[in-house]
């Protein structure tokens, strides 16, 4: 096993991990051009554009292209996040050449026909309606929106009914040109050697026009003051979906690794404090976890639980108390030792396949992670001290600026929850079918 290697191939920037275990090859063509570049009022443009490119590659009829992709034993998708757009797929080795030709068609020669644009927009609007059935998804959408209100990270990647209606075909065509002129990164893994990967990358690079590096103008997000409760009101909920959080970590923070270790102890594993108190001791929620994702700017820290409606208030009270105790008293040496062992040893499963290894390398490049972020990860974790973890928790965990989002039936849970949140600044009840 070796770290992903960067190869020089014409102008293409190629990451590669070879594995001949299975006759499969995976390819990701990535750009740093994501949904946060959607113009205000036209949220959802990049995702709509990438999906339309995927459907109309080479000017084909979508049905014909999908049949072609399936028939060669391939899967191809377009994935848009706030900061990146990825065209990625996997193919049975025997069809690699045809697969790369399809990639060229999608990125460089999309048809973007008007009839398909209108059809896809109607489909996305129907998906938005359908997504109202997903309580967990609702909690996540409202948490993102309220957490990063006014910041690009708060925008709806899939758009809203209003923003999707404002998007024109010209907008999509312009966005497709922008995606195909952003500097691409190529990541190959699987049953392929370097020379072939380089040649194929150059072929795909040929469809990019004047590709240039894209700077990221996103400002650092800030948090609205006070403790805010947002109840997403949905009828007949026997259960609630709860997200509690605030601003989290940045990969360039000096205490970034220490905070990750602290979060592991708090809510990162099945034996962590949150699971122990919420699930094991009380049986209140099937899952209880906390997370600290990263992006190119500071992202959110959040705790996630889903207790029944009658337990929601008590569960929130418990979580807030645990968060306060963590911030004030920190973690113990015994907990730190266990967490470091877990993180360093389980890293084996972050790098046990070629696609995972190349994925980490790609992530480092796309998100401007510090050099050696993944390669030196276990060493950094092993070097973290108890003081560093506790200082990081004290400095970074949210206290006064806190967002609590609950999906549930407001009339049944609101007053009980409000009574359990000390220093609550505001409560907002939003209908579950409001745009988010």
């Amino acid at each position, binding site marked *: 096993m070796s770290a992903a290697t960067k190869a020089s191939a014409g102008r293409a920037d190629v990451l590669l991990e070879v594995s001949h275990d299975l006759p*499969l090859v995976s390819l990701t063509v990535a750009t740093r051009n994501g949904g946060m570049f959607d113009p205000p009022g036209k949220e959802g443009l990049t995702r709509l554009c990438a999906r339309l490119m995927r459907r109309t590659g080479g000017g084909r009829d979508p049905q014909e292209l999908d*049949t072609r992709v*399936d028939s060669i034993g391939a899967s191809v998708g377009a994935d848009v996040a706030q900061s990146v757009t990825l065209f990625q797929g996997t*193919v049975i080795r025997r069809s690699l050449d045809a697969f790369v030709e399809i990639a060229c068609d999608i990125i460089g020669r999309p048809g973007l026909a008007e009839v398909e644009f209108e059809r896809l927009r109607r489909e996305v609007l129907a998906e938005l309606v359908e997504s109202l059935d997903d309580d967990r998804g609702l909690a996540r959408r409202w948490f993102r929106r309220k957490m990063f209100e006014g910041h690009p990270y708060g925008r709806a990647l899939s758009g809203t009914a209003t923003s999707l209606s404002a998007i024109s075909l010209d907008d999509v065509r312009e966005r497709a040109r922008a995606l195909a002129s952003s500097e691409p990164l190529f990541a190959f893994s699987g049953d392929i050697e370097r020379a072939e990967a380089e040649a194929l990358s150059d072929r795909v690079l040929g469809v990019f026009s004047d590709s240039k590096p894209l700077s990221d103008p996103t400002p650092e997000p800030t948090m609205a003051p006070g403790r805010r409760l947002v109840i997403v*009101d*949905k009828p007949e909920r026997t259960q609630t979906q709860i997200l509690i959080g605030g601003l989290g970590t940045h990969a360039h923070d000096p205490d970034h690794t220490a905070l990750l270790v602290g979060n592991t102890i708090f809510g990162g594993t099945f034996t962590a404090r949150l699971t122990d108190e919420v699930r094991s001791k009380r049986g209140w929620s099937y899952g209880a976890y906390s997370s600290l994702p990263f992006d190119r700017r500071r992202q959110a820290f959040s705790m996630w639980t889903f207790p029944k409606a009658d337990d929601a208030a008590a569960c929130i009270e418990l979580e807030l108390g645990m968060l306060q105790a963590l911030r004030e008293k920190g973690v113990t040496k015994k907990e730190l030792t266990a967490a470091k062992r877990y993180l360093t040893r389980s890293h084996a499963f972050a790098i046990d396949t070629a*696609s995972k290894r190349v994925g980490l390398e790609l992530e480092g490049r796309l998100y401007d992670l510090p050099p050696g972020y993944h390669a030196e990860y276990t060493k950094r974790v092993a070097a973290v001290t108890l003081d560093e973890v506790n200082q990081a928790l004290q400095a970074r965990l949210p206290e006064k600026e806190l967002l609590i989002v609950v999906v549930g039936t407001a009339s049944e849970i609101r007053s009980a929850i409000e009574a359990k949140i000390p220093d609550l600044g505001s409560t907002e009840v939003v209908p579950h*079918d409001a745009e988010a």
Partner: protein
Amino acid sequence: MPTPPWLSKLNEKAKPYGKLTALEPVAFGPNLRVERYRLENGLEILFCPDRSAPVIAYHTWFRVGSRHEREGKTGLAHLFEHLMFNELEGRKAGEFDRLLEEAGAESNASTWLDWTQYNISIPKDRLSLVVGLEAERMQKLVLREPQVVSEKEVVANERRYRVDDDIEGSVSELLWSTAFTRHAYKAPTIGWMPDIQGFTTEDCAEFYKTFYAPNNAVLVVVGDVGSSRLLELISRAYGDIPPSQLPLEDVHPEPAQLEQRVKEVEKPTPTEKVTIGFHSPAFGDWDHPILSLLIEVLFGGRASRLHKRLVRDLEIASEVRSFVGPFKDPGLVELFLSAREGHKAEELVKVLDEELERVKEEPIEPEEIERARARFELGLLAGLETMDGKASTLGFHETLLGRPGAAFDRLDAIRLADASELRRVARRYFGLNTRSIVYVRSQAPAASGEAS
């Protein structure tokens, strides 16, 4: 098969039930090989050497699932799966998980109609810990009242999450309890809520004693370890565990469904939905892979027939899905269609019926069959990327069919299936008057009385 010298030597010093018999190895696809052994107590062992990464997948499959439950006690197999992560004799509660996490392991478990499986993936230098712990929990689980009470509440919350507050989960449950009247498949694996809340510690202890025995289990190990070291560890750890007298199964065949059964429910959802169940063959039946291929033609991906007509051309559905239940006994091929706003579920069913009648009459084009076959092949290969994926595939096929490499046999069957076979299974299984249907109607919005 002749016993290799290293195994004979190992057997000389084995514990009472620790002697190993080597069985014929079997192929697992074109490149992999699976060694097979059996301990004296009946424990089956499958080992697939794989040195592509310094990790090991260690799975334990028990031949017990919700099919073994009786009325009033549904959900016991699943609740018990949760309890298996609690306390072991001589160890503190929670120590099992703590030890595994400190070793860097990833562990989980699942229960379905026919089986329960426990999976642990571990860095290769911590293998002995996993073998020891898994052997311990096969015989030394401690069941105490407070833990059973707490875990029942966890499972009740899991049920609220997956079923009660989830439209698809709740209508799927209703579909199965409508389509099955006699066979144990009529009850959901997670159990009915009153049953979950009614379990006693004694129920759990009895279940453990009855079903968690080496002669009711298969160990599947995939990864970077040598055969002799692995088997020495297994023989030592499991060699004291006696076999059980397993009860005869008490499963009743499902009588043929001779009429269409229709139910309706109201849910707080903006769009109508419909789920439909046709009785399908058992996983081991010759027809199962052929029917699965037909479902791929009809529902697999955006180029499939139903997606094309309902989502793309007519734009009356937002989603269409289907799968053929992979079960020991005949199950259901389950269809799920979600209507777009303003459309009735019946509109979708009308188009569906036209397409089902079409595959009963007109031969499917070779290109469509080829497309579906390629999707199958890609799906199988992609599922084998990790050691855990390989172990799951081996364990599932061994537990259900007694043939660990059968995933590739199914691929062969799919390669052989032609338009005639597809039409035959369409005619056999898509009886429009012998199916079950659950319609989901949109409930009129009830004001919560809250405003901001």
